[in-house]
């Protein structure tokens, strides 16, 4: 009963936030509504006892992806962006995309509903159930190759991004900190001994 109330309240917030993303005039508000939508769906997943996925959603999308979105959107010239935004111009494209996505979702639900009942509630698990453990068991057995492959691709992406910055432009007068630290007095000061000058 209580979880039902929670579900409907959160679902209402989620839908309102999702609407806010597209109707907000200020792009920063759009991003913030999207953040709210992600957080609400994470809480909905918590109601489904998918704690690992819920926290991962917050960590990846809210904690990393949306921060970068906000970072970029904040630097936009908001006044100009508001003037240029024309809802009607992009409406046909958006509507077409929405229809395609909705069609796909309905097809997916229809296919799923033939193999398993969609309307019945799943009984809550007992306290010892660990969603994290279950997920790990599937990821490291059944899907181990796909999982390892995805992990390697992501690692490669981060290493590559760092390697790209490792280039050295010629003619750049940058400090070499280790050279500065390692310098000794003999490298900078040359002590010469010369005979003292005399008047003769």
């Amino acid at each position, binding site marked *: 009963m209580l979880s039902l109330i929670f579900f409907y309240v959160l679902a209402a917030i989620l839908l309102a936030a999702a609407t806010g993303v597209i109707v907000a005039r200020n792009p920063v508000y759009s991003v913030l509504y999207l953040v709210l939508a992600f957080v609400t769906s994470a809480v909905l997943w918590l109601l489904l006892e998918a704690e*690992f996925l819920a*926290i*991962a959603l917050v960590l990846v999308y809210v904690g990393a992806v949306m*921060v970068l979105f*906000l970072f970029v959107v904040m630097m936009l010239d908001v006044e100009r962006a508001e003037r240029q935004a024309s809802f009607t111009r992009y409406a046909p494209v958006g509507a077409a995309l929405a229809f395609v996505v909705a069609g796909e979702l309905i097809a997916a639900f229809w296919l799923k509903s033939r193999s398993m009942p969609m309307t019945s509630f799943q009984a809550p698990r007992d306290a010892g159930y660990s969603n994290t453990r279950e997920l790990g068991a599937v990821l490291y057995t059944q899907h181990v190759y796909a999982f390892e492959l995805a992990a390697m691709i992501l690692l490669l992406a*981060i290493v590559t991004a*760092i390697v790209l910055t*490792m280039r050295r432009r010629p003619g750049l007068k940058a400090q070499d900190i280790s050279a500065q630290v390692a310098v000794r007095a003999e490298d900078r000061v040359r002590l010469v001994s010369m005979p003292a000058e005399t008047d003769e």
Partner: protein
Amino acid sequence: MIEQLTNLLDFLPPVLLTIVVSAAKIVPLVVVLILCVAFLTLAERKVIGAMQSRVGPNRVGPRGLGQPFADVIKLLLKEVILPARSNRILFLIAPLLSIIPALAAWAVVPLFPGFAIADIDAGLLYVLALTSLSVYGVILAGWATNSKYALLGAMRSAAQIVAYEIAMGFALVGVLMAGGSLNLGQIVAAQAGGPAQWFWLPLFPLFVVYFISGVAETNRAPFDVAEGESEIVAGFHVEYSGVAFAVFFLAEYANMILIAALTAVLFLGGWESPFAGPLYAFLDGGVLEFIRHDSLLWLSAKIAVFLFCFLWFRATFPRYRYDQIMRLGWKVFIPVTIVWIFVEGAMVVMQVGPWSA
């Protein structure tokens, strides 16, 4: 104690009972945390004062102990100024967004053997998710203020936090491999057996990277370019005054305590006593027997050590230049952590160190 409370109040409906019992755990923790923050600000001024051959605050109360309360009363009585043309809603929400994650993350921190407010299985992930949320407060404050200096501070902070979060995440992967669990209580339990078994030794590079990244994440000196008094006045909180500023201040210090606690839990055995081994059996029966038991005392002592390091860094190091911060985060810390994860993998396979059993 919690069981007694549950038995005492079992006439209540279960929903209400859950709320009351949770509140009985949460409220004392939050009160203690806020008191810790108050005295941490005093400790900071005293410690840095001592390091600079000054006395520090000594006017309010005996030995200056009333200073934090005087500061709080001063800040509460001041006017909250809303800058013209700022975004009011976001301007006022931003401080809350920075304090909430700093306090909420404490829910999973194991305080003493067998106790955390929420003993969840994905605890480590929860901590990582919440610490990554604290950046929103800073970014939104900078943007909502509608000032160049605040926006610059927010930009710097966002880039810095994103950079150091990756190194932090990789350091946590190492802890995860060593502890064999995402549950913080089980990670502490995996470190049983004295200081040599704590993870700081086999994971030493990750320990150093984690703590320094923690300093960077909390925007503390020498990584405090988001405030950068010498260039951008006070950065993201330049226009904040009164209570709104106090909340940012509280969040910064609460985050410091959180990072210190997490470093202690993940790398220094949390509540484990360093004198637990049979070597120190001679202490049994004496007045000092209590130091052989695992307790909140040891967690507090370890947190205090790290907090002292925070203050020490601030008194010692000059502020980093911004490009050097980025270089340290991306080009030094991330490669170090990746290499050490591979080394750790090799150690697990070869069964050296803590994996020899």
